[in-house]
């Protein structure tokens, strides 16, 4: 018995263990560390960033942003908009097939758009398509959208993850896209073990010839930050989308890891509830702005970035700098607080605890506000509570949050001036933002947005902390991993492992 144990069972057991470790991934496979499990893989039933980051590889959109953020043709090889802005015509590519073998035609575009605007789908992005009055398909490769009113942001919606085109026959048969995505994208869905991993293989019939270069991508869901970092360090993970600034020293000292620093499209803010006393007093909001050293907050909490001065990401083409308005000046802050008679009143910064960077930023700002004599305490809440109580319920004084960038400024600005969660009302701003959606000329739109953003910069319903950097970590043999500008989705089409 002992012999059997010694010569057969034990070596066998160890062989199994080692084989499991060594052959977990095949050659040409990129293992991507994902911090969470996407809620669903259906691009039209969620607003979750994780979903869009993953499904970007399964689907294509009619148009898409290039690396500079400019919207360029994708499934549509060209498009035109009538002078009155009411008729949009898209000419489709003829060489595209879905993963299930179905040829891509105008029928699919119509079925997809119908699905989004159908109330039964309950898409969180439905409003973005509500200007579409009619969808016509004069032939298999032409789609004509008739709008009820001119609506320039539509192009950005069509280029975003939720504009993903689904095959019409599967829509008709009620296919479960949430669990089994089928698109025209560079990779075909293979398997999803919830909370563990998502595998995808190259789509050999992808319409951009020669792409994608990788044979396989595996999203490994690793929630623990320490494990992500160690995994990248030893090569169990080939790429990480987000490296916490605190972990940079360990990874930067590893010669087999490359860290790329890029400006995100996030708008980091401390929002103020302008309907509450004394934050409804402009002087108090100005004092809070003078009291915050934005660069310190960015550097210490967010790993650096460019300070902001109004409600748009600093790299945005529509951004205008107003940073001369409220430079760091604690003395001026004290004076303004005194003038406004704030006294020892207690304020609360409510922060979602699932974002450790925002918590750190809130702690810093709490200290900075204490220095000018404000009595501020910190309250941590979970994400759902934050959404319902703070964001939707308006039950807060201050909150720290990062707004994700959008392809079109309307995605960021719509509704401000008309009482979105900061409860700040300004009819001029509201009117300018609305008017800008009806114009497609860049210069004319920029003029309107600049006017609105200047008022927002002056009246400060927020402390505009700025736009942070992102640190993307890859193994040194990974080349050309891209993140889509503004959308922050993963683009593996050009990625190679050498």
């Amino acid at each position, binding site marked *: 018995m002992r012999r059997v144990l010694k010569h057969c069972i034990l070596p066998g057991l160890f062989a199994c263990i080692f084989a499991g470790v060594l052959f*977990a991934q095949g050659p040409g496979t990129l293992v991507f560390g994902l911090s969470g499990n996407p809620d669903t893989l259906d691009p039209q039933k969620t607003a979750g960033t994780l979903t869009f980051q993953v499904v970007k590889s399964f689907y294509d959109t009619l148009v898409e942003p290039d690396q500079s953020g400019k919207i360029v043709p994708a499934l549509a090889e060209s498009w035109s908009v009538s002078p009155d802005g009411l008729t949009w015509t898209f000419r489709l590519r003829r060489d595209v097939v879905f993963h299930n073998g179905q040829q891509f035609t105008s029928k699919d575009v119509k079925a997809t758009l119908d699905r989004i605007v159908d109330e039964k789908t309950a898409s*969180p992005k439905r409003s973005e398509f509500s200007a579409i009055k009619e969808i016509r398909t004069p032939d298999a490769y032409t789609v004509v959208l008739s709008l009820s009113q001119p609506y320039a942001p539509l192009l950005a919606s069509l280029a975003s993850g939720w504009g993903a085109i689904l095959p019409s026959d599967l829509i008709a048969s009620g296919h479960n896209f949430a669990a089994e995505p089928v698109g025209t994208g560079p990779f075909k869905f293979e398997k999803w073990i919830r909370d563990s991993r998502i595998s995808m293989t190259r789509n050999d019939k992808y319409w951009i010839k020669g792409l994608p270069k990788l044979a396989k991508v595996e999203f490994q869901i690793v929630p623990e930050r320490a494990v992500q970092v160690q995994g990248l360090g030893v090569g*169990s993970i080939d790429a990480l989308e987000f490296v916490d600034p605190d972990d940079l020293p360990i990874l930067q000292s590893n010669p087999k890891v490359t860290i790329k620093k890029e400006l995100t499209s996030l708008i980091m803010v401390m929002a103020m509830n302008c309907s509450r006393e004394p934050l409804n007093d402009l002087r108090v909001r100005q004092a809070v702005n003078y009291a915050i050293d934005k660069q310190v907050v960015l550097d210490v909490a967010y790993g650096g970035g460019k300070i902001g001065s109004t409600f748009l990401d600093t790299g945005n083409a529509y951004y205008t700098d107003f940073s001369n308005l409220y430079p760091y000046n604690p003395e001026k802050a004290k004076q303004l607080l005194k003038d406004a008679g704030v006294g020892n009143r207690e304020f609360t910064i409510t922060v979602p605890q699932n974002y450790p960077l925002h918590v750190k930023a809130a702690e810093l700002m709490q200290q900075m506000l204490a220095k000018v004599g404000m009595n501020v305490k910190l309250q941590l809440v979970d*994400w759902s509570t934050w959404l319902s109580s703070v964001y939707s319920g308006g039950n807060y004084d201050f909150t720290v949050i990062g707004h994700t960038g959008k392809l079109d400024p309307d995605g960021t600005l719509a509704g401000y001036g008309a009482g979105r969660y900061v409860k700040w009302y300004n009819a001029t701003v509201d009117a300018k933002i609305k008017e800008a959606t009806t114009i497609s000329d860049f210069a004319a739109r920029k003029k309107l947005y600049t006017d609105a953003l200047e008022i927002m910069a002056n009246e400060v319903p927020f402390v505009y902390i700025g736009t942070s950097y992102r640190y993307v970590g890859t193994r040194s043999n990974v080349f050309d991993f891209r993140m889509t500008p503004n959308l922050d989705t993963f683009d593996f089409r050009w990625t190679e492992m050498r």
Partner: protein
Amino acid sequence: MNFIKYAAKRFLRLILTIFIISTIIFFVIRVIPGDPALVIGGVDASPSDIQAIRAKLGTDRPLSVQYVEFLWSILRLDFGRSMISDEPVISLILQRFPLTFTLAVLGLLIGILIAIPLGVLSAVKRWSGWDYLGLVFSQLGMAIPSFWLGILLLLLLAIKFPIFPLFGADSPAGLVLPALSLGVGRAAILLRHTRASMIEELSKEYVVAARAKGLPESVIRYKHALKNALLPIITIAGIEFGYMLGGAIIIEQVFSLPGLGRLFLYAIYQRDFPLIQGGVVFIALIFSLVNFVADMLYSIVNPKIRLE
């Protein structure tokens, strides 16, 4: 006849327990702040979009209607669909259950394998080197948080000496370190109880009588005393096992394992009402059924219980 009456009574109690638990969880998750429609819609959805999502989820209807519907579905053992992922709750739970079950069994097995021999040795050789070793181990085992031990094990056996995988449970090797991290904590608790229980048994009169009869010491210890000493240990092990079936959230998080703990944790974060309800009822059902079966077995072995 007596047995049938007793079994029926117990079964009614089980139904009542499940009913009370489902009612409590139904209302608790709706009283605390949070709205699944806002989680799905995110910060950019318009109020009309959020309203459409609520209508689809059915959360816009009166609470009483939702409650009756929920009770009716529980009666049919239908847990509904997840609000967030739109997948059937029962299939989400059953996908995770095998892993959590295996992990709990392995964790308990490791716990028992360490605790019982060391606990018995501690009791038999009181205040010897073995006893001190046992005491130090149980003190450490209880003081060290399992996530910390987990990270240490990963650093040593997955990074420094890459014997085990860093994450996931694709191969059986992936379960070794998590089971070990879980088992050490269980072992520490069980060891304490084994030692105390064994010491108590060894001081009882039947042991003195056995010694007087001239029975060998090994027979007294391992055949008579240990058998009796193990009874309370089995009860405690059972409770520990039940606790681990609910998912060892922290261990699953550290080792990136797709178990029940993480499923339920995120369900709570996202206010996924059907999934939280289904999870709680599922676990309560398993607990109650195990208890029910144990009660029945007890009453067969010891018919006196039925009369009490």
